[in-house]
């Protein structure tokens, strides 16, 4: 039986906040409601990162996933017809549940094989720093500078590509003015 310390209690609470909405996403019929549950699930993951004393990654999770990606998904969901009604259950229910069971089996294998104490907050506590931001900054602009720059170039291309796709040609404006007259 697991000892119920404050850490374990918070871990169980955060896990519930993550998993229960994640189950809800799959079983709720309304897309909007499942999106709300998805945001709640993201917040739970941020709480798990806090428990691992990874403060920067927790805030980044909150900022990027709960704050920004959810907005992106909102606009995507708005484009689907019948957001809140008549979302029937998937035809591939059996296949999906088989996949879920296999994934669970894989996770159990991973947890039992690896020594997780090396990967949790205990490993961080042994190291000699109290501020993860400085460590992440020096690593990103030192050891992993090429990957960092490549990622930024990739994002720039994505931005330019999105603008060039969305941008309408000038002839569109002329048509509109003619129509109105």
């Amino acid at each position, binding site marked *: 039986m697991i000892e119920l310390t404050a850490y374990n209690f918070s871990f169980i609470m955060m896990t519930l906040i993550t998993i229960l909405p994640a189950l809800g996403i799959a079983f709720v019929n309304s897309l909007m409601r499942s999106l709300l549950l998805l945001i709640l699930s993201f917040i739970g993951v941020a709480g798990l990162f806090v428990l691992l004393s990874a403060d920067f990654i927790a805030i980044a999770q909150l900022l990027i996933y709960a704050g920004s990606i*959810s907005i992106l998904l909102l606009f995507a969901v708005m484009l689907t017809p019948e957001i809140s009604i008549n979302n029937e259950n998937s035809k591939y229910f059996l296949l999906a549940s088989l996949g879920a069971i296999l994934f669970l089996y894989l996770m159990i294998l991973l947890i039992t094989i690896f020594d997780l104490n090396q990967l949790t907050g205990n490993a961080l506590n042994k190291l000699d720093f109290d501020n993860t931001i400085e460590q992440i900054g020096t690593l990103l602009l030192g050891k992993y500078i090429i990957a960092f720059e490549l990622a930024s170039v990739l994002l720039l291309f994505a931005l330019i590509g999105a603008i060039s796709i969305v941008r309408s040609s000038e002839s569109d404006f002329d048509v509109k003015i003619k129509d109105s007259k």
Partner: protein
Amino acid sequence: MSFFNQVFKGPQLAYYFKKISIAVFIFIVIVAGYFFSQLFFDLSKFSQFIFDFVLQRSNYNFAYFTSSIIGALGIISFVGLVLLVGSWVERRVIAKFQIRVGPNRVGPFGLLQPIADAIKLMQKEVLVPAIADKTLFLIPPVAIFLPAILAWGPIPWAPNMSYLNINVGILYVFAVSSLTVPIIFFAGWSSMNHYALLGSMRTVAMMVSYEIPISLSLLSVAIITGTLNFSEIVLWQSTNSIWLGLFMPFSLFTFFFASTAEINRTPNDIAEAESEIVAGYHIEYSGMKAGLFMAVELGNAVLLGALVTSLFLNGWFLFGIEKFVPPYIIFIGKTVAIYLLLIWLRATFPRFRLDQLMNFAWKTLIPVSIINFFVIAIEVTILNQFQSTGILIYIFALFNIFLFLGLIVVWSKIFSVDKFQPEKIQPKFAGEIGGLEAMKGVKSVD
């Protein structure tokens, strides 16, 4: 009696009595305030006392839990007090601007008016539209309070007096306040009202675009202070004896203006443009549910004051006065000053149009903030070459002020929006495009 009447005529007597009583009142307030301030100079003693008191009677975890709960209650009660007093202050001050009296009937000076308003709002019936998504409809008014209160956490009230003294303070506030965006969207969507949906959509668009200039201005604060911790930013300003608002006026302006867009204050309160979309995303909410949205907007305005104070106005320091007055009083004083500035803006400026706001964000604020950011980054590299910043920081501050003015002039004269628009789009009357005859071709929505 006749002598008395000769010296003090009737109205004169009342006049002098009023003056003297006001003077006596101010004197009593100053004396009592001095004694109270000496007693409550360092509030960290009290929290330490509570922590030790509980620790003697139980284990560490429980003591930590209790003191954190008490600290959270302190912040929540402060926010509640701000919501009550703030609405009164806002109405009275705006009434002064508009040469009215304002609420003055309920209680002395109308001070009990917010309580009367709250009771009235609670008594009203909560109407839920028949076609609304009822679960989603009832969540947003409550959920929108979470970011508004969580963001108060890392605010440094005084030395050793900040609830969440975390290394990622600025990012935390930024991340938590970005959670309001989906909540506002859910409020608008679940109402199943076109005006509400339009209001929430334009609010989301505006918030997303104004987060970029805010993050750029916060980035410049972070690179010069070398930290994201609020307390350390305040201490940096005092050790280098300069207010960051003076050192980088454009960042201050960007942060202030863009934050008014984030919290839906005039001149950027596009979310509730009555003339265009009736009331915005909270049109279908009635009673206390609408009141909660209003309260959050007011609380966010005061929160903006606290953020500007700690980031740009040197927090609890004020030219040595902080040795005699409790530092948190100075902090709250600066916060209230920013809040009064916001009320002044609300009373003075008209509302921007949506397209003007978006153009201003994308074509002016973001490019100019990037230029400003690079200039500050170069200055920081130069400053880091020296042991002490000395007089160089004041030279850079002067340079930055001129840069601020120069960039405004350059951007308004040379790179203005009109230059890139091939022809000006003039609004057309219905008669010009064929009048009501043309409208007959349009299919009815019903």
